[in-house]
């Protein structure tokens, strides 16, 4: 309990400092997890001081959610950056929303090398580009694949599995 309240106090101070610097931030909390929503053009400006001044030195995860059919969602994609302070174990979630047609978010590989494969996976599964990424190729799916299967308009079965690949008959093989 003690540790929990100290942690909340710490995140209050953090959020106040960040709010003074970035007036367009919005914050929320759920089950003790602090979350920040930042406009896309301020993402790198926010993440850099978070890493260098506030000690969120590890990027735990980077993922994406497609809100196409989600109840009361206004944006199409939401990127989620899960940060942690390795000294204290405190976590922070940073979210960015992107909409079609401009599906790109600045790459954070310059801040955390760990983002390299995570951003490739998001590109692979959701088709979001990361300008500034050193090597943005598909990672899990074959290079010839033409869709982004974790998007909500991609069906669970029946599409994209076979028609992308040439059919080899027995005589050709």
């Amino acid at each position, binding site marked *: 309990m003690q540790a929990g309240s100290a942690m909340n106090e710490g995140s209050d101070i953090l959020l106040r400092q960040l709010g003074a610097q970035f007036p367009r931030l919005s914050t929320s909390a759920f089950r003790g997890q602090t979350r920040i929503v930042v406009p896309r053009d301020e993402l790198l400006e926010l993440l850099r001081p978070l890493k260098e001044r506030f000690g969120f030195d590890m990027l735990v995860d980077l993922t994406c959610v497609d809100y196409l059919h989600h109840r009361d969602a206004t944006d199409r994609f939401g990127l989620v950056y899960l940060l942690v302070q390795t000294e204290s*174990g405190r976590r922070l979630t940073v979210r960015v929303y992107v909409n079609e047609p401009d599906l790109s978010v600045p790459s954070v590989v310059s801040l955390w090398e760990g983002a390299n494969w995570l951003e490739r996976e998001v590109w692979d599964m959701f088709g979001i580009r990361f300008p500034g990424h050193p090597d943005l190729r598909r990672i899990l799916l074959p290079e010839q694949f033409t869709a982004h299967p974790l998007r909500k308009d991609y069906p669970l079965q029946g599409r994209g599995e076979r028609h992308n690949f040439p059919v080899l008959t027995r005589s050709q093989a």
Partner: protein
Amino acid sequence: MPLTPLDTPRVSPLAGEDYLWTLNFGPQHPATHTTLRIVIKLDGERVVDAQPDIGYLHSGFEKIGEHLDYNQYVTVTDRMNYVSPIANNVAWHQAVETLLGIELTPRCRYIRVIVAELARISDHLLSVGAMGLDVGAFTFFLYAFYQRERIYDIFEALCGARFTNSYTRVGGLMHDMTPLVVEKIRAFVREFPATLHDMERLLNRNRIFVDRTRGVGVLTREDAIHRSVSGPVARASGVPRDLRKDEPYLAYADFDFQVCCAAAGDCFARYYVRMAEMRESLRIVAQAVEHLPAGPINVGPEERAALPGKSAVYQTIEGTITHFELVMANRGFVVPCEEAYAAVEAPNGELGFYLVGDGSNVAYRARCRPPSFLHFALFPHLIRGHTLSDVVAVLGSLNIIAAELDR
């Protein structure tokens, strides 16, 4: 959705260096243990560059997670890190219960701790055993595998399945622990240290093993943090991060155990940390099994999460209501329209799930944060400058499980 070509064509920094030999390692190779491929550029026997190519086992687990309900998906998590499936079960339902806001019963927490720690021992046994096998220590591998067999026996007595356990449920467990299981665990706790001692004596000061692993694949502390490394790999590089201590979930706050760290960050340090962690896990299991609280394993009907027992269904009105609420197709769990992340210290590192709920019984998005994925990304960095024979030592020390890597 046509795939547009990439902005810049990839130019290898090594273009023009014709004398380099390109070697294709995998996807079928005994030392990869699973299906993964590495394209290695060699200068003589020295590795100049390595390019991992993954995705051979990609089976769309995250897409399936958007179509199976919170109890059904646990069977899929079994297939992620199949070396310690029960730890994945615990991780998945930890995330679901965080999203749903369910407080587990003390007995359930203790049992989950016990099975998670047994899974850690069995995972580390396979990991160090296979690493020993790859660098030539066959006996060591057999010692390790025999003990894994005993842990399988415990799981079989516990839930009927040896391998793909699917043991946890939302708000509880599939079965309670029987006296037979407790007896088997006590026997294991009593007898395992002798084998562990033998294993340490076989390799810790073994000249061949030490020469092949010490100073190989060194990961510095800064790099470990910079590259999002977790678990034993990070601890072997001197990052004292262990979610069991940092954010004590389940009942880990009740137990006396140490976080095992090393400073060297090489393959030997990773082996050594895993060996030391097995001892600590065994201590946790011993404490938990002796202080196992009595009481129910599932949360009560007021939570509307776990199916009540048959006597409660037939004899109490709350039990009947809960039963119907859970089994009727148009009813189910009370899921908030929210997002939550929860992680556990899985044997391989931080295994987390980022869940988005939309009010239905099925997750809107079930992102898995697989430790192997981030560890395999390290591989080119670790192997550069070492020889071809070090590839298997580094791969073994990272414990890459391709099913978890590709999901």
